């Protein structure tokens, strides 16, 4: 068993047994469902809008090299600088170099899952920089020393009392139970940090090839401040975030907001096309964009699952997933949780270690129905299971399938096996068998019928 799998099974079992926590998560998601449905109803045809969103991403991803080149030419003609990173290590090195060249002391970050993917904070801290997450949820998770629980709602599992205690411990503030006051504590604390920071790091939700702009979606205004006050702005983005036309955003932005948070539009959707221009009264002197591959091209090489690169990271698939709602986000042990994480993590980090996530699904298809860009999520989980069996079957899988093939293709042997099984089942139920006992821990094994199906068929009038 891979290490990741062992950890997953342990964490998932503990989380699933925590009833009060599950109720808390479901309650937190209740408001989301209601708002999402209200906003979906404002679309004149949500299903067709999904078609358009899906097609916009399909067109860019399936012409990725040209679309990226167009984007980069435009972006650089606007005065920004593009850096290419083949993997996480290269991306970290580039960013460290940029920060060192800027003689920076303090770095402020707005929410960006791609920086989590490359473990940027660790690298920066090791290099001696102080890094502050400015998104409230990320800030809380940073103080907790914990990875985000959900890639859109990072601390949705934390109760206000815990947040209050956390702030008392780290910021020395008085205890309070009001979400409003807690938010204001973070606001006051972080404001000065934006003003003092030399470098601001953000992600990007979309890269627009037509205009060379990057688009950032957020609710709090922290990304706006991060890209306004520090002297240098560095953005990190996966190569798959590019779209062809500015107009594509007229579909994608409202859909991201509706699917992701049940809003008509996220509070701030900002397009940046370069550093401060002559005649503008503020903004960074330098604007850098790091474009990251990090195994995305491997996913691209699989035409069957290529559409998982269409993901706009709205988080809708997590919010409806019965597995996510029961085991929570931390058990996954991945940067991207939930159905989309289970689909792409095996590609990004190795099928052998991460295939167990493909089994963490009831295959109900709720994720596929929720996805605004129509990624065939639950089928991709099946594709991963199949691929894992083909490329690295376990000894058990191999023996089991060989045995199964042998028996099923010999009718007499099959009938004999059935008879033996029916006869010995009451005894089998009592001995704890490997594999079977784990399955039976939470399930009942019905008793065997007196006759096999084939016998019953023969005895009936059909025979």
């Amino acid at each position: 068993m891979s290490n990741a799998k062992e950890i997953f099974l342990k964490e998932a079992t503990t989380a699933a047994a925590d009833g009060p926590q599950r109720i808390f998560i479901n309650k937190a998601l209740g408001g989301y469902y209601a708002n999402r449905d209200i906003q979906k109803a404002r679309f004149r045809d949500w299903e067709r809008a999904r078609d358009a969103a899906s097609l916009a991403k399909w067109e860019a991803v399936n012409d990725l090299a040209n679309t990226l080149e167009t984007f980069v030419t435009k972006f650089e003609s606007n005065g920004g600088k593009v850096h290419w990173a083949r993997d996480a290590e290269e991306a970290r090195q580039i960013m460290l170099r940029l920060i060192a060249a800027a003689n920076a002391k303090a770095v402020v970050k707005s929410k960006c899952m791609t920086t989590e993917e490359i473990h940027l904070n660790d690298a920066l801290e090791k290099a001696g920089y102080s890094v502050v997450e400015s998104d409230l949820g990320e800030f809380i998770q940073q103080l907790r020393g914990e990875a985000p629980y959900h890639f859109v709602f990072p601390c949705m599992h934390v109760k206000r009392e815990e947040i209050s205690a956390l702030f008392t411990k780290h910021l020395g503030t008085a205890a309070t139970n009001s979400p409003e006051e807690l938010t204001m504590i973070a606001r006051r604390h972080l404001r000065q940090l934006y003003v003092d920071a030399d470098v601001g790091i953000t992600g990007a939700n979309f890269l627009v090839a037509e205009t060379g702009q990057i688009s950032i979606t957020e609710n709090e205004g922290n990304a706006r401040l991060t890209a306004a006050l520090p002297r240098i702005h560095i953005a990190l983005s996966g190569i798959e975030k590019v779209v062809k036309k500015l107009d594509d955003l007229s579909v994608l932005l409202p859909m991201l907001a509706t699917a992701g948070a049940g809003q008509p539009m996220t509070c701030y959707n900002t397009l940046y096309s370069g550093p401060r221009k002559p005649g503008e009264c503020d903004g960074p002197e330098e604007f850098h964009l790091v474009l990251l591959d990090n195994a995305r091209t491997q996913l691209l090489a699989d035409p069957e699952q290529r559409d998982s690169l269409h993901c706009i990271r709205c988080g809708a698939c997590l919010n409806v997933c019965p597995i996510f709602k029961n085991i929570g986000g931390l058990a996954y042990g991945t940067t991207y949780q939930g159905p989309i994480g289970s689909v792409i993590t095996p590609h990004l980090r190795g099928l052998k270690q991460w295939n167990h996530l493909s089994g963490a699904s009831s295959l109900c298809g709720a994720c596929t129905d929720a996805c605004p860009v129509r990624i065939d999520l639950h089928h991709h989980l099946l594709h991963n299971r199949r691929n894992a069996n083909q490329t690295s079957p376990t000894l058990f899988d191999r023996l089991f399938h060989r045995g199964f093939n042998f028996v099923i293709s010999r009718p007499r042997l099959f009938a004999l096996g059935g008879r033996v099984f029916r006869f010995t089942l009451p005894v089998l139920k009592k001995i704890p068998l490997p594999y079977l006992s784990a399955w039976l821990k939470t399930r009942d094994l019905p008793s065997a019928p007196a006759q096999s199906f084939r016998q019953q068929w023969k005895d009936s009038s059909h025979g």
Partner: protein
Amino acid sequence: MANARSEILSRIREALKVVAPKPHFKSEPHGNSAAQNAKPWLPDGGATMTARLDLLTENLAKLKANLIRVPDATAAQQALQSIAQAKHWKKVAYHSHPLVAPAVEALLCEKWEVTSSFDKQKLEACDAGVTSCEAIVAQLGSILVSSVSSGGRSLSILPHVHVVIATVDQVTADLEGCFSDMLARHGQKLPSMLSFITGPSRTGDIERILVLGAHGPKELYVILVG
């Protein structure tokens, strides 16, 4: 070692040699962009100006933004003055703009014009920032500000209250129209920042409970002239 750019691009070209089937939909979106004929499927933006203004009023109310409609510039000035008094503003930041500057300059409190090389700390200490905008989107209740039309990047996000003064003819139906207006107005020289502001800053990070004023302005006023 090959350079990263050419290596990634060649990985992409290699990967795309195997073609993925185009998604098949009941009605194929067509036109210049995948999104182009998606307009009839998206939320309505209003066919007439009256419809747009009604939608805008409704959307801003839901977003907890305050819309104040006034007949002319003098009334806009008075509206701003009464907010300033009611909220006891001591210091208001603004930028030079024919709609904004006269209204702010008539205020009785301290006024501070943001020009190039302003002091960030000073701006943070202001009670409110008053700006103009590029456009207002009725469909979503979004205000589009830019680094050119709205006094740079910070003025609309750093002060604790944001006041937008706009004219009725700046109200566009939907995002699509807004994007094509932007491309027509600025051509190849887009402002370095274009930002759609949809209601006051907010967060739901604590137990998914809505709190206004996470990092940006806690209050958003739209004074619409005409």
